[in-house]
């Protein structure tokens, strides 16, 4: 694993008993001794600490300009309302391609004189190259900071005990907060369906900061395994699984990330790659859309399992894009992109080991998020 990158928390993970695996070019903990199930439930009940330092952090600015100037440029490759994003707030968006597919998903924060982006680890090089090709923009990949996520119902109490100002942050607020002489870049967000924070911390102090959080008995280290089951239960799509360059925002059920102002008839209609595909699809409704699936019985149906429209014979109407066991749901859960003629409660069939298992179309998310709005 010599060519794999390590985050500033690598040694801490090993000392905590983390089982390290290759992930998107990084050596990351998939689980700790508590195990995936225990870590998942711990995060839903108390607070989990995740190392997400492998994700790309990027600062965008127009020299001499404001965040709104950078936003105007970013809107040429991201169909979101970034120009209208107030200072101190964060939004979710997508990079799209000319065919209307999704190149990556990202978080965008307005920090006054610049934008701060967080992109997927596996797509970071591609995204940075794309941004560097845009006129007038300065692209600064942030390489000297770790990124941690503190997630769960106790996250607010734990974090504001260390930094009282954090308590006033609402869902999707961002702020720069001081900790022991360092700047923490904080957002009240995450990828688990729980209240929580994502915290960018200088690499040299990352371990110390993580250990400060872990001192609270409510906080446990959590690996990638539980991160995946948590986001699946929360109905959150994962790049490379539930969306990719061949999946449109409509099909990925991410239409909500493209606001009126960028749609047909909007003030800043289109102007991003694939608009001629994406906008008509949003206006008319996508033919296929990502939905939740609840299989009957206990057998998990995982990524790649074929979905049919009949118990015998019939047509294959899609494949599971994410699936597994939902520890909080207490049963199997999955997502697939299926014909939008199906609605909640309808039955389809998953072909598992040669047998067809009845699967109900279900609302997403599978759990009720507890964001502090």
């Amino acid at each position, binding site marked *: 694993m010599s060519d794999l990158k390590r985050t500033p928390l690598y040694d801490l993970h090993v000392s905590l008993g983390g089982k390290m695996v290759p992930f998107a070019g990084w050596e990351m903990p998939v689980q700790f001794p508590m195990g*995936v199930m225990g870590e*998942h439930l711990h995060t839903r009940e108390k607070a989990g600490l995740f190392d997400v330092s492998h994700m790309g952090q990027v600062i965008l600015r127009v020299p001499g300009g404001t965040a709104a100037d950078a936003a105007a440029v970013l809107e040429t490759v991201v169909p979101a309302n970034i120009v209208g994003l107030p200072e101190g707030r964060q939004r979710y968006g997508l990079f799209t391609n000319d065919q209307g597919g999704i190149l990556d998903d990202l978080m965008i924060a307005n920090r006054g004189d610049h934008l701060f982006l967080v992109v997927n680890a596996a797509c970071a090089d591609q995204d940075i190259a794309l941004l560097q090709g845009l006129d007038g923009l300065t692209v600064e990949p942030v390489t000297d900071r770790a990124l941690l996520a503190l997630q769960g119902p106790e996250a607010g109490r734990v974090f504001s005990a260390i930094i009282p100002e954090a308590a006033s942050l609402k869902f999707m607020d961002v702020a720069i907060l001081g900790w022991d002489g360092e700047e923490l870049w904080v957002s009240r967000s995450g990828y688990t369906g729980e209240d929580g924070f994502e915290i960018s911390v200088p690499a040299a102090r990352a371990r110390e900061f993580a250990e400060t959080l872990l001192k609270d008995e409510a906080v446990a280290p959590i690996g990638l395994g539980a991160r995946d089951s948590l986001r699946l239960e929360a109905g959150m799509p994962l790049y490379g699984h539930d969306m990719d360059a061949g999946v449109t925002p409509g099909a990925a059920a991410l239409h909500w990330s493209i606001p009126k102002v960028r749609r047909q008839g909007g003030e800043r209609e289109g102007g991003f790659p694939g608009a001629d595909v994406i906008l008509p699809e949003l206006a008319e409704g996508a033919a296929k859309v990502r939905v939740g699936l609840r299989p009957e019985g206990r*057998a998990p149906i995982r990524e790649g399992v074929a979905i049919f429209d009949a118990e015998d014979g019939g047509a294959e109407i899609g494949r599971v894009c994410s699936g597994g066991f939902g520890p909080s749901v207490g049963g199997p859960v999955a997502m697939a992109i299926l014909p939008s003629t199906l609605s909640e409660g309808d039955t389809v069939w998953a072909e598992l080991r040669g047998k067809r298992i009845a699967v109900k179309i279900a609302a997403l998310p599978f759990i009720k998020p507890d964001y502090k709005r």
Partner: protein
Amino acid sequence: MLKYTEDHEWLKQEGDEVVVGITAHASEQLGDVVFVELPEVGREVEKGEEIVVIESVKAASDIVAPIAGVITAVNEELPDNPGAVNDDAMAAWFFRIKPAEGEAIDGFMDEAAYQALIG
């Protein structure tokens, strides 16, 4: 006497039947078991045939028949309580098999050989 396969199954001779489960090492590797699918009682199986499906939070895996024979019983409690495999792998047996003519478990690894295998 307990015997072990390279597929991390434990085998226990009881009368003319063999009881089969997976080792604690295997259950640790699998992680939290959330689903178990057992063979039908009375089924005739070939050696190496995949007859049990185990799903953990992480992945699906199989248990193969260590020898040819007929399934004489399955642990009915497992599908309702798959976590028992993690709690006590030696107690959470999967099935009993009556060996076919000429089949025996004598040739499988003993405890010491298995411990050497898993290091």
